[in-house]
């Protein structure tokens, strides 16, 4: 006889602003909720380790070229809009804050607050991406996109093109991760609306939170490395 599946019956109550009595759905491969939660959490941390290695590779390349062509990189970096970069940094840090609030509210069973904070995080993420898109547009207009149309004052042009190659690759990879993150947050928002999360089970919120914080931390490294080369107050 196959081992009987342990499945708790979900109970959904609509209209209740705070409490939902959802019990955890335990996937059939797990013995209990605790094992499921531990496995999922370890899984997310291992995944974040892979992301560190992924971004680490390109960070290493950037740092090597930065030390090789320090003057050119400073000149290129100064063409980035530091104010937009600063605003974006603030936006992302706020979005991490709203994410923390979302996790907290899931833990204390405040469904409306959870939904609000998830929505805020999504919106802040969209603001970030919009500003980024605007920056990309500006760079296109200024002929700073690497390729045939690239133009930069004479002596530093090749190294500056390398700088902008890294700029677009690194911020582009980062943006892809943010888009995925926003998608995940949208999924959380939808399920939160269904009353899926409770103090007993809000692991997905926590784990997406971990991912979102990681994406934020990557930006915290990107910003000074790309925008603040050789800047003076």
């Amino acid at each position, binding site marked *: 006889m196959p081992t009987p599946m342990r499945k708790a019956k979900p109970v959904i109550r609509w209209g209740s602003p705070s409490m939902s009595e959802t019990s955890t759905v335990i996937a059939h491969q797990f013995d209990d909720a605790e094992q499921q939660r531990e496995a999922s959490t370890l899984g997310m941390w291992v995944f974040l380790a892979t992301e560190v290695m992924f971004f680490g590779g390109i960070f290493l390349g950037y740092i090597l070229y930065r030390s090789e*062509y320090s*003057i050119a990189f400073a000149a290129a970096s100064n063409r980035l809009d530091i104010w937009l970069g600063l605003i974006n940094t603030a936006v992302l840090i706020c979005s991490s804050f709203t994410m923390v609030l979302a996790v907290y509210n899931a833990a204390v069973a405040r469904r409306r607050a959870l939904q609000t904070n998830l929505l805020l995080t999504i919106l802040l993420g969209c603001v970030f991406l919009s500003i980024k898109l605007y920056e990309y547009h500006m760079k296109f207009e200024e002929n700073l996109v690497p390729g045939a149309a690239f133009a930069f004052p*004479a*002596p530093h042009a*090749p190294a500056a093109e390398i700088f902008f190659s890294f700029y677009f690759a690194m911020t582009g990879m980062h943006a892809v991760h943010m888009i995925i993150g926003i998608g995940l947050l949208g999924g959380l928002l939808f399920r939160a609306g269904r009353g899926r999360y409770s103090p007993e089970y809000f692991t997905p919120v926590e784990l997406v939170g971990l991912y979102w914080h990681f994406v934020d931390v990557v930006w915290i490294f990107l910003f000074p490395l790309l925008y603040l080369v050789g800047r003076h107050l």
Partner: protein
Amino acid sequence: MWQNLPLLPEQASTMAPRVDALFLFVLGVAVFFAGLIFVSIVYLAVKYRRRADAAAPKLIAGSLALELLWTVIPLGLTMVMFVWGALLFVEIQNPPADALEIIAVGKQWMWKMQHPDGHQEINELHVPIGRPIKLTMTSEDVIHSFFVPAFRIKMDVLPGRYTTAWFEATRAGRYRLFCAEFCGTQHSGMIGSVTVLELSEYESWLSGRAAGTSTAKMGESLFQRLGCASCHRPGGAVPAPSLVGLFGSKVALEGGRTVVADEGYIRESIIDPRAKIVAGYQPVMPTYRGLISEDGILQIIAYLKSAEQGTGEAARP
């Protein structure tokens, strides 16, 4: 030691017997351990083959003494290999000071060699026996690799950079030169030969060719033609660092660093002059990227070296 063992290539350079000796040592260790394992497995598998009447095997968990033994002994042997190999490698990488300097430029799919007297060879290199030869090499396109099995030398040839290799031939003959880094369609066609001549034959080969301009002289005329001389001379149009005695000297840069003026530094100064600014000078030198070939850069380097050595062959810059 042993000349031309079967299954080994000819030994035609000073390094070849030394590489082969190290190879034979490692081979001896490898054969010993491979034999040990093979014999042990066959012996144990036969001796302890399953028999209906035999007792069931006892649990033998392990032996710390054995583990230490077969960790420490291989460690010791490998460290001998490492030290021997590293010392040999240092010698393989460092040419003697009095080497004859040859320029080798690899490009898809041929080798261009240039002797100091300016003579060029394509896919061929004639050298005298018993004289160290130093190759300064670069590529015009992709990565190639200069490989002469009989000399036991190999060095990748890179675009945008110089690499060096050296050998001293010990036997006259014609030895194969291969490209050993995949470089495109005719990679396996990028084959040439190094011909080692006895000294007298080498002399007659040298004199048998039409007298040409030496590499350094070619460099001098480029130096004039490209306008380098207009700044890099006393009282030049714009203050520029003197190039007399430059090669091999230490150069103080803006920002406090010092670098040694080797081939790579000179090449960079021509292609990307703003990369390193000499202390006390302005970054006004224009770039010659696209205006001078790799051959040309190497000729200018030869010119600057000759002036440093005071051979008198070329006018001082």
